[in-house]
């Protein structure tokens, strides 16, 4: 009995201890908001098979961020502009030349990324900014201003998704049918790119630009294995995203990891569980699947 109580107290203590620090409160607030918008916006990327585009935009924000820093402008704004410019260039290359979209993404995002690293490496010699913080996230670096900016971005993103939900659903399922019904699909697509860029920018401090793709795709993909409709994927995905980013923060705090990798390890584990155990699509237990041991046998001896 008293052992139980002691254990409970220890867990509570483990949970509440970090919260006494203002920086941890700020990081958790940002982590929760980022967990929500990444999952919601990332669901569109997943269903449109545009995961690589998420990766491209996230790598492309770096030079904008560096230039904004040099000019003394809000780095969120610089990063956002660079992200949008990169999608415009990608679209331009693939519509104006025989180059396919994925090749265009590969070319553009690596170029932007290289430029960004060059710029940041140069300026970090004289300034107190650290490249690693942008690449992998940095919970210690979340300021009050960051919390405000993230809240503004999250509010805008969620409002846009709520207001445009039916149009974006039609467009992402059947772009041609949506265009033929008279919807301005070019504008919808541009709006989606803006939402992705905003989301990536808001996520920089928490997960970093290299790993943000995981927080964009994995929560939605995990939810997709569990529920059948897009809005359910978004809601459950948001819950998974919040759980992952908050527990990642705690891991980061206690084990002294960069926050990005910690979050990504949690969300990847959740995905693996759903992949194996989802009642709808689980590899081991889904409907129409053979008994788990047969599955394992098959995994171990592919020739069977």
């Amino acid at each position, binding site marked *: 009995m008293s052992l139980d109580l002691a254990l409970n107290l220890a867990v509570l203590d483990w949970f509440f201890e970090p919260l006494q620090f203002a920086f941890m409160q700020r990081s958790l607030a940002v982590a929760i908001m980022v967990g929500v918008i990444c999952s919601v916006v990332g669901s569109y990327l997943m269903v449109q*098979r545009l995961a690589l585009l998420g990766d491209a935009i996230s790598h492309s924000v770096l030079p904008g961020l560096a230039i904004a820093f040099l000019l003394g402008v809000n780095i969120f704004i610089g990063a956002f502009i660079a992200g949008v410019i990169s999608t415009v260039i990608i679209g331009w290359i693939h519509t104006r030349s025989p180059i396919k979209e994925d090749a265009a993404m590969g070319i553009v995002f690596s170029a932007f990324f290289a430029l960004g690293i060059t710029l940041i490496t140069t300026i970090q010699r004289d300034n107190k900014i650290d490249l690693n913080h942008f690449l992998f996230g940095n919970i210690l670096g979340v300021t009050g201003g960051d919390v405000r900016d993230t809240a503004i971005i999250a509010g805008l993103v969620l409002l846009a998704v709520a207001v*445009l939900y*039916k*149009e974006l659903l039609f467009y*992402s399922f059947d772009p041609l049918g949506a*265009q033929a*019904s008279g919807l301005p699909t070019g504008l919808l697509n541009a709006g989606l790119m803006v939402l992705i860029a905003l989301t990536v920018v808001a996520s920089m401090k928490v997960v970093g630009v290299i790993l943000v793709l995981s927080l964009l795709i994995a929560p939605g993909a995990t939810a997709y294995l569990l529920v059948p409709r897009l809005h359910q994927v978004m809601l459950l995905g948001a819950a998974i995203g919040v759980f992952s980013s908050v527990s990642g923060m705690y891991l980061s705090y206690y084990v002294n990891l960069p926050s990005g990798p910690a979050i990504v390890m949690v969300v990847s584990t959740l995905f693996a569980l759903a992949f194996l155990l989802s009642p709808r699509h689980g590899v081991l237990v889904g409907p129409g699947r053979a008994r788990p041991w047969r599955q394992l046998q098959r995994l171990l001896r592919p020739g069977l």
Partner: protein
Amino acid sequence: MVVTSKIMVDHLSVNYRDVQALRNINLTVRPGKVVGVFGPNGAGKSTLVKAMLGLMPVVTGRVTYGDDILAHQLDRVAYVPQRSQIDWTFPATVWDVVMMGRVKQTGWFKRFSAPSHQIVQDSLERVGMADFCDRPIGALSGGQQQRVFLARALAQQAEIFCFDEPFVGVDQKTETVIFSIFRELAAAGKIVLVINHDLGESITNFDQLILLNKELIAAGPRDWVLTRDHMTRAYGGHVGFFGHVA
């Protein structure tokens, strides 16, 4: 009001980069008929319909409906793409997909109205899919998927209906349902344009045919279009369909 406008295609040419897909097409599509677009694979059938609706750029020509460019009146169009172009693993139910037919009519920033719900329900009943409304679309047969798309087109309450290869991979029952709805739409004075390539018995369900192979071979009443000369020009030397069409 009975719809009396017709679609006029005037000197339409379409390119994909440096490859010409359609050359100088002139034709008229009238309401009240079930019109089939026929031609071999790669003849430009899908391209013709997409270009007519302004879904892709054209090199020359214009397509009008009534007094205006057709592409400016897409509110009056229901278009169903080839089933193979759609990702059927998309997280949506039958209801969600048919409801998409009400998005444009509903307008920005608004929720679906009660009449829209009723229209969707009626459309599902008309194609025999009302019992499946909560089913994920990935769990449907090919024929059921096509009927869901037909229901979505019906829900749009359009004047012009365009279907790209609606009979590919569907069962006999679905084919019968789809043709009877095409017949009803035509009888209600709608324009019904159906891309097909199957030259079997089902061709007798079309009133008018448009025969294509990069250029227009023939367009008009079925029996007028179905001559050996036209078919040879469209399909080449060896077409064994005449046995079916008495």
